[in-house]
């Protein structure tokens, strides 16, 4: 929210006084809730993304993700009822999915990342938690080849059913280079 260009020239001042505090509290709250309710090692890393207006980012271990997702949704202090975006990223040494969560009632936002092995990528499906994840997970599966165990209908969604490979992978090579 605060990354907007506000003409008037008060931006640097605001950055100093306002930016760190409110979102740091959101981040700390989420981390402590996850550690106490889900698992004390559920959060691998937590930081504020200053580039994105101080968005709280949490990297959650894949084995605890489903439980953490349920808590993000149902715990009133977090209340992330809206999954606004789901992206998959291939970092060449590992794969990652990013969930941009939002609480409609409080306006709190989180970017949650879950990392997985590149050779056999698998991240628990959260379609049961946010139905919005359904097609998004299918898209990530289709284009990046990440498996989502627990997904009700994990099929290709963009590419043809008989397509070989996952095009958004960094090492993807088309079978027919002319195409």
């Amino acid at each position: 929210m605060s990354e907007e260009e506000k003409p008037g020239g008060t931006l640097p001042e605001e950055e100093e006084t306002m930016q760190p505090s409110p979102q740091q509290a959101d981040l700390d709250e989420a981390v402590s809730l996850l550690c106490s309710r889900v698992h004390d090692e559920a959060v691998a890393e937590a930081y504020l993304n200053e580039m994105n207006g101080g968005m709280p980012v949490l990297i959650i271990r894949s084995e605890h993700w489903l439980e953490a997702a349920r808590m993000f949704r149902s715990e009133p202090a977090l209340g992330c009822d809206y999954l606004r975006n789901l992206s998959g990223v291939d970092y060449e040494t590992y794969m990652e999915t990013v969930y941009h969560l939002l609480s409609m009632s409080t306006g709190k936002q989180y970017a949650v990342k879950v990392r997985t092995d590149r050779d056999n990528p698998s991240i628990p499906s959260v379609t049961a938690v946010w139905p919005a994840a359904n097609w998004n997970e299918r898209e990530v599966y289709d284009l990046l080849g990440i498996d989502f165990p627990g997904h009700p209908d994990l099929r290709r969604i963009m590419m043809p059913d008989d397509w070989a490979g996952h095009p958004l992978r960094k090492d993807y090579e088309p079978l027919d280079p002319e195409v």
Partner: protein
Amino acid sequence: MIRTEELLLNVGPQHPSTHGVFRIIVKLDGEVITDATPVMGYLHRGTEKLAENLNYTQIIPYTDRMDYVSAMTNNYVLCHAVETMMGLQIPERAEFLRLIVMELQRVASHLVWWGTYLLDIGAMSPFLYAFRDREIIINLFNELCGARLTYNYMRVGGVKWDAPDGWIDKVSEFIPYMESKLEEYDRLVSGNEIFLARIKGIGVYDAETAVSYGLSGANLRCTGLNWDLRKTEPYSLYDRFAFDVPVGRTGDCYDRYRIRLEEIRQSLRILRQAVEQFPEGGETMGKVPRVIRPPEGEVYVRIESPRGEIGCHIVSKGKAEPYRLKFRRPSFVNLQILPKLLIGETMTNLITILGGIDIVVGEVDC
């Protein structure tokens, strides 16, 4: 004994009411739909993959081709994401021009929706009215950037072209014209009993369902949720203008219809204020490095497109090309609720409900 049999019916991939190459397989028990499976991907061009080998300026024309009914908002979301990463300041004149074209685009997009939706339902003439009025906006855009649909107008840091002489006056002439036409639309269609019988109480869902399915735009607001990113998470200059966010009550196709028509009115209201406050002179491009290289990091930005929340997630490794570019396309996410809405409905309502969601298949498939 009457023998009944389940019927598997294929609709599309080319069908006049699917607004692009979209296919849906429905299972029918008599007239009633028991199951529906949408099939997408016929318009998948791999924009996100292509973008990984293009610099940011080169990606802008690709965004035109996602939601080709609302290319200006797509231009904006990409530029806005890169500007956020680089912390760029946009000159006021450029930001005003962007806001004016985005609101004109919203009007144009809703006009396309209004015309084609009624065409789907079986009313031929409203389409001609809507396209007559949309043509004025298209001509305005043509004058501004030389294109009617795929504008490639915005740049990281500003806009490509300044408004030609007299352009702003033409926009201000359009506002009262369009307002009078909206009244005509209402007289022509909105009270028509046959039309109301077709859309009232059809495709109903509640706010909780809408939120859990990640719906946005009119599809979300029809349930009574007051959620418009121009108000809730203001970007551009929207916090300077007075406008209302129309919301519905029942969450049916009729509410979505009313909201979109009212949004045209509100956009005209924003346009009137923007035209009045439009700065005399000034730059249309901010200070931008010759090669646009956002620093290493990632952002997710979102704006309110005519169809809902369009988002852009960029992962940068400090190069001139994005490492990963992902678009959160409202049409794709909104369409997910379709199978759920269709179960128990009749075939005629399939068209009503699909049209009411307002998808653009270029954006669904990306």
